[in-house]
């Protein structure tokens, strides 16, 4: 772990610069430029709100904000997972020419995803104001919720990044898994009210994304305290995943260049 922190200290500036560079290059040659970062999540929110608010009506309070908060958290997780699987192979040029601790690549990517998540959250707050959601101080507790989300995503990301190097089908498998988690996390429905039986009980406890999404909505929209035991539990799991990921990468990262 000490090596991890030393490397982080040594390379975080590069990670930040490279993240900025990637964001810049993403908007470098599109007509609406950075506006896409706002338009895209907003339009997805409109679609979900239309389909699951009118086509399949529900009586969820402040439904648009409800969707937007969930979607912000989901998009971050989804991008981390999808992005990490092919990360090493996509950076082939770099990995075969120079030594860099491989989690720095993931860290740098995660910064661009964080940036996009904060845009989505900004939109969510705008929407909450628009819908007159009563704002309370509880919203500050979103920070620990997001922290746990980050730690878990980073841990899972590192492990997938490692296996993505040698295991070609991993991308297909994660796609299926992600689709499942997507529908079982309650982005556009409330697990607590829709699945009130044992299934809902299990989902909210066994699926960290469903749990964290639910906690994020509790603090943002309903002005409630999050479940601190739950957060502590998933933080511990996240840290375990991260330590395992770091360990595996330290052990194998020097062989990646031989394989890709």
């Amino acid at each position, binding site marked *: 772990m000490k090596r991890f922190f030393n490397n982080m200290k040594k390379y975080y500036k590069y990670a930040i610069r490279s993240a900025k560079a990637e964001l810049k290059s993403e908007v470098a*040659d599109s007509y609406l430029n950075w506006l896409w970062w706002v338009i895209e999540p907003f339009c997805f929110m409109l679609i979900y709100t239309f389909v699951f608010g009118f086509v399949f009506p529900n009586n969820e309070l402040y439904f648009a904000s409800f969707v937007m908060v969930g979607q912000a958290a989901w998009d971050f997780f989804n991008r981390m997972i999808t992005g990490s699987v092919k990360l090493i192979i996509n950076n082939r040029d770099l990995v075969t020419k120079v*030594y860099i601790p491989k989690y720095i690549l993931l860290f740098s990517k995660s910064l661009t995803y964080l940036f996009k998540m904060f845009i989505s959250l900004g939109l969510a707050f705008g929407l909450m104001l628009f819908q007159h959601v009563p704002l309370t101080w509880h919203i500050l507790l979103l920070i620990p919720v997001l922290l746990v989300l980050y730690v878990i995503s980073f841990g899972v990301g590192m492990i997938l990044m490692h296996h993505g190097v040698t*295991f070609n089908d991993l991308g297909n498998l994660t796609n299926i898994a992600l689709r499942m988690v997507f529908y079982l996390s309650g982005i556009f429905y409330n697990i607590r009210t829709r699945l009130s039986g044992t299934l809902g009980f299990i989902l909210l406890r066994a699926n960290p994304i469903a749990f964290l999404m639910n906690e994020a909505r509790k603090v943002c929209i309903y002005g409630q305290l999050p479940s601190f035991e739950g957060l502590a539990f998933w933080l511990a799991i996240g840290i375990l995943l991260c330590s395992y990921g770091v360990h595996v990468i330290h052990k194998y990262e020097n062989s990646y260049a031989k394989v890709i």
Partner: protein
Amino acid sequence: MTKYSTKKNTNKEIAVTVKDLHITYRGLKKTSIRASWKHLGDKVELFHALKGVSFEIEEGKILGIIGKNGSGKSTMLRAIAGIFSPDKGSIDLHGRSISLLSIGVGFNKKLTGRENIYLSGMLLGFSEEEIAKKEKEIIDFADIGDFIKKPVKTYSSGMYSKLAFAITAILETDIMLIDEVLSVGDVKFKEKSYNKMKELISDDTRTVIIVSHSLGTIKELCDEVLWLNDGVVKMIGKPEDVIPKYEEFMKQ
């Protein structure tokens, strides 16, 4: 031909120590569900790229590595640069900084040349401040005019390699590893880059390892030559001793 000669320094330090270096390509073998189904029970194929190579280089010396294709030259260079880890044996750089001279590492083609100087430089292990200090020198050396402010994707291939070369050549490290001596760009820049390369290589404190198929270059630049054959050291010594033997061997 100008022959490079080191000043005789009695207490030369050792810059690189390679001891019993083994490198095997295996371990992480690519698999997919289908492939692992078909090859269930197959033996893992091993390829020994290097089989126990040992040598030392004194500070300031220039070592040339020769050998036929697939003899492990580039593998060894990458191992010394830290991109691979040895499967057995050790590489000791005695605390020196090292870089593998390679062109355009970490370039992002949609960004300007100037931004890419920083991206590439930081990947090579330099801090923002160090690069800022050398930025002007790099831009001057690359000599691509106003294009430095334009995205790299608008560059001609010559301009691209000029900038990339300038970055690696101006940001110097204690030990330089060179896979084929580069000369890039148009005739004028080719000469300039070759001369710069020679200047970098002949610096008295810089240790250099060159892999090349051009025996002329090796003869001209190197103090010592290491001949690799199928992953083992066939011969190591002065260029005038090793190269004739190598030429003879290759004719067979």
